[in-house]
């Protein structure tokens, strides 16, 4: 059984923070590079539709930088950062709720409750999940992977995907649904094999 992964070397972040506090602001780049991916991954799966994940992630880093003196070296910087991110996300969701047509366009209440429930899980699980997902993607044959590539990498319209694959648009949608289910099952199976809560 593997132990749960963290976010890399904690002392690296603490060293960088020490340098920032001494005036070497550029050292904050080390912190951003270490945590940008797990933070964006966590936000991506916990933010309801309509939230600009990169924007919230950047604002979280900026807030962390501004309040860096509050952070106690040697404790858990990742936990501190993710707490800031949770508040930032809440603020953004509150802002969106004030937008007149937000509910009509995204129906966020559909997901909100479930996403919030899942948000209580340790943030580092998303990083693990992301790694498993990449392995699961690697196991797909080209005939299936091409749908993922078209939809998410090349971002081509469904109509074009239908033409390329010789299927109907409805069949392409169904294929994407099946692929997402398949990948979800693959990731959860790997998580379970490592003893991680899913």
């Amino acid at each position: 059984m593997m132990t749960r992964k963290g976010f890399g070397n904690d002392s690296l972040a603490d060293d960088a923070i020490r340098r920032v506090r001494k005036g070497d602001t550029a050292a904050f780049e080390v912190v951003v590079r270490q945590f940008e991916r797990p933070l964006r991954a966590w936000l991506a799966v916990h933010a309801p539709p309509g939230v600009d994940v990169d924007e919230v992630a950047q604002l979280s880093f900026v807030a962390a930088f501004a309040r860096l003196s509050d952070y106690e070296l040697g404790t858990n910087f990742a936990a501190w950062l993710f707490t800031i991110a949770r508040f930032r996300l809440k603020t953004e969701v509150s802002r969106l709720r004030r937008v007149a047509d937000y509910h009509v366009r995204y129906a966020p209440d559909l997901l909100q409750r479930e996403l919030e429930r899942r948000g209580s899980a340790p943030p580092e699980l998303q990083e693990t999940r992301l790694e498993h997902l990449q392995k699961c993607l690697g196991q797909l044959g080209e005939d299936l992977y091409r749908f993922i590539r078209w939809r998410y990498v090349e971002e081509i319209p469904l109509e074009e995907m239908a033409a390329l694959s010789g299927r109907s648009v409805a069949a392409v949608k169904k294929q994407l649904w099946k692929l997402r289910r398949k990948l979800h099952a693959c990731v959860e199976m790997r998580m379970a094999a490592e003893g991680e809560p899913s």
Partner: protein
Amino acid sequence: MNDDERFIELWNDYLEGELDESRIAEIRALVEGDDRLLRMAADSYQMHRLLGLIAQDTGSRQDDFVAETLARLPADDDRFIEGVMQNLSQGSPRKGTTTRKLLAKWPMAIATAAVVVLIAGVYFQRPSAEREIAKITGLSGSLQWTGDGGRVFHDLRVGAELPGGTIEGMVPGSWFQLEFNDGSTVTISGNSMLTFSDQGQKKLHLKEGSVSGRVKPQPAGKPMLIYTRSAMLEVLGTQFEVEAGLSATMLNVSEGKVRVKRLSDGSTVDVPAQHRVIVAADREMSPVLVPDSVNRWISQLHLGPDGTQGKWSPKTDAEDAKLRAIPYTTPQGKTIYTAAFGVSRGDRPPVVLQPASRLRVRGRIASTHKVYFGVTVKHAGGEFAGRFQTIRPAVEFQNAQDFEVILQFRDFRLDPSLIEMKNELPSAPFDSVVESFWCHTLDKQAGLEVTEAELIPTAEHESE
């Protein structure tokens, strides 16, 4: 079709952003009270988001993210630049927006090389034979300076001293402020082109765009001269703003007095403080009081492309008139696709933002992409007051769909590239005059088109 099949069909459309209101209501009814479907929806949504993240997580995207984040850090002093410069052992550090951007965007090794090149460029490429007549006191956005017998420079920085030459703003958000040796300042903003010289008398040629100035008293018999295609202005010491078009020049005087000569017939007129005049061959040249400001503005694309930047298309039977974003590639290789509208321009009254002002933008996008919306604002006297922007996520702009967004100005933030000047600029755009409204996408031609933009002053009973 059973509930599960219907749910799958609807949820796929939801993730693709293709659900209308009635079908959103239908899916809500299906999921309501069915935890199994809700979990399935959340699983699918999270997988969808993770796949999107993985697909776009290229090295350059991560670099961009890091660069954008670093550029947004509060800059309470120049420690960032100084720290790097000291690490490079390149001697005394100097402040510079361009340098900061380079450092933020590129890996350190490349940035190191860039700083060395930049310093070498500034110190060694500058012509020693020409006398410096002014220094740069502020800049942002893409700019191009042509001097030294036609050599073109992009790596400008605050504090650099310049001989005469031509400065050009390349995008609607460009801004450049120059201080002459006697303390007089001139500022260009947006797509403007200004040639300046001082051989004992300051002479400016404004080919297009706008320039504002705060001019110290000039030597007797040697006023600052500003030439446009249609007018010549004599400035003795005053605060003013000039806007030059192909066939007309608009002069707005805040303080002092400016003498204007119409080039087509040689007629002259003195424009006193708080007055403006339009100089054109086909209209009477008489100064009028600067009109009171207003809080409402609407684009009028059906009247033509005047004052816009972008590819304009007239109204047809099937479509409204529209303005399509056009690309500009920076010397660093980043491409920005922009559509922009002049707001307080020509003989229109100045448009002032209120805290509760909103901006409604209608348009269309060919492919899903996040969109930046912003305004460039100025003080009543014409001085630059900042650029403020908000970013709306890609999910609001679906493939080949019309969009309408309502933007609240309380959500607008100072453009990160101006962060070094935050103490000199207002923290919000309120009570400032809107010079231009712009929107853009980055790095990808998303086919952004605007059909209408409207600044709406919120009625009292609506304001919070």
